[in-house]
């Protein structure tokens, strides 16, 4: 019986490896041409005229038309893997959660689970009710991965599957993960979950090459965690949870710029001022994990 149920899975894995060998077959998008400049800009080859384009760090740059040539990028597993390990240079991502605004709408969780192929009981971000039995006081606390600067989970990983990038994001590589769950035991914030069963929509994502930044497709028997929506950040967009919030709970931004943007109102404020003026704190600072997620207290007088 057990053999029977295992048979199709083994076959699919072998097929997957074979596909990995022939890179051409894996690349779903085939060769995507990164055109710099518009159609008119391409035909207008007179040197001296400039075109505007976005570089890898999403900065608007200008270059001479004669210098620009189309680049072909094969979007296969190898490319995605290399890209995922790299991180956005010169960035230090940071999140601020304003607890006073959270009304338990749980839109962040929904958006996250939709993007990362998660079952309803699996969370990359979870909204917890903090309840004080004695006084009956309660508030809601969204809790994503804290993307610590001193991450215990990365320390204990025996196979280098989970790692910290230079932009501060702690990611996990499904392809390397052996499912030992040391990281789940090491994380004081319970930010990680394990794929005990086949992930949601496994059939749909069967042939999609693994994108580390999106952490999709998920794989049974591996650990999964919040990625600060690294795929969205590369496009210069706010994370899924941040932009889905209807109550303006989340601020997200770059510590190097000292600016954070509210996901709902799109209001941009100074990070240092926001933290200083609102008595911000981090979770379990005594552990020395140095989280990159800050909290603003749930009530203000």
């Amino acid at each position, binding site marked *: 019986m057990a053999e029977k149920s295992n048979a199709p899975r083994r076959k699919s894995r072998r097929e997957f490896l074979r596909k990995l060998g022939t890179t051409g077959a894996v690349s779903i998008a085939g060769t995507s041409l990164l055109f710099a400049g518009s159609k008119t800009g391409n035909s207008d080859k007179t040197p001296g005229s400039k075109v505007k384009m976005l570089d890898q760090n999403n900065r608007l740059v200008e270059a001479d038309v004669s210098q620009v040539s189309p680049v072909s990028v094969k979007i296969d597993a190898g490319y995605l893997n290399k890209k995922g390990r790299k991180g956005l240079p010169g960035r230090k991502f940071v999140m601020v959660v304003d607890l006073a605004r959270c009304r338990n709408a749980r839109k962040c969780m929904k958006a996250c689970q939709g993007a990362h192929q998660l079952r309803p009981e699996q969370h990359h971000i979870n909204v917890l009710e903090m309840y004080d039995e004695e006084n009956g006081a309660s508030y809601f606390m969204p809790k994503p991965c804290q993307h610590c600067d001193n991450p215990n989970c990365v320390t204990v990983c025996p196979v280098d599957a989970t790692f910290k990038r230079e932009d*501060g994001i702690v990611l996990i590589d499904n392809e390397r993960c052996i499912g030992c769950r040391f990281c789940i035991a090491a994380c004081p914030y319970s930010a990680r979950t394990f794929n005990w069963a086949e992930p949601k929509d496994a059939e749909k994502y069967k042939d999609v090459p693994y994108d580390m930044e999106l952490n999709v497709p998920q794989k049974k028997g591996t650990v999964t965690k919040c990625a600060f929506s690294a795929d969205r950040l590369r496009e210069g967009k706010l994370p899924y949870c941040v932009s889905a919030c209807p109550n303006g709970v989340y601020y997200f931004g*770059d510590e190097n710029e000292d600016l954070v943007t509210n996901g*709902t109102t799109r209001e941009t404020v100074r990070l240092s001022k926001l933290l200083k003026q609102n008595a911000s704190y981090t979770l379990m600072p005594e552990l020395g994990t140095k989280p990159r997620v800050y909290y603003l207290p749930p009530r203000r007088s």
Partner: protein
Amino acid sequence: MKNYILLIFFVLNFGFVVNAQEWTVPAEEAEKVSPYIFEDDFVTDGEILYENSCTSCHGTPTENNFMPFSPPPGDPASEQFQSQPDGALFYKIQKGRGIMPVFENILAEEEIWSLIAYFRSFNKEYVQPEFDYGDEVLSELKFDLDFDENIDKLVVKVFSDGEVEEGIDVSAFVVGMFGKFPLGKTKTNELGLAYLDVDPSLPGDKQGNLDILVRVRKGYAIEKATTSMKIAEPAQQTSLIEGRHLWSTGDKAPVWLLVTFLLIVVGIWGVILYIIFGLFRLKKIG
């Protein structure tokens, strides 16, 4: 029971009556067209406004997930919305009806037009009708930027058709990765100069550059541009994975860890080899 059926009947009927009532827009209002050009930036402004003020009832455009009210709020990307002229949409947003709030005193005219620009971005066939500026001539705006280090102020000199002029609106922003941080809003003085405060503690990039977006407006003429200016002190940007830590990847493991590990490996293999060597020697003697 009978009462319930009657009530349901009444409610349904009521809904029908309200639905049946056309929301009529005065003809001269419906003919109104936008003086602002529906370009990408304008659409983005509208999108942000929409997400703040409209999503709760009208839902996400194209997804038809509006609230089940009577009359239904409708989806801005739907045929029902797109078949109306710009002026009618403008009037309805401004005046409101029933549970649709009155936005006349909440949103400026420019903001309402940006919302309509956002709605029209879902309609590929839409061509923006031209606004008749009449006697008003759109002046050609140009500006120069400078930063005064002594007073930490951004200086904007505005030329309207080549001349300096008083009272032209100037606003400036620092362009961040996800949004624009406002530096302020002011008007030009009689020399055509506008001064905007820049917080000296704002960090720049490695060269001390900040991306400054300046927007100049006179009547319906708008001019904006983003310039990279050396305003801040060059920032020392350190990588978060610099140095050797317990959590670093293998090639950047702490030295003490590498040494201890190697000593243990060498020690264990040494003992094993010593024993094997000893066994061989025993055999030789025996």
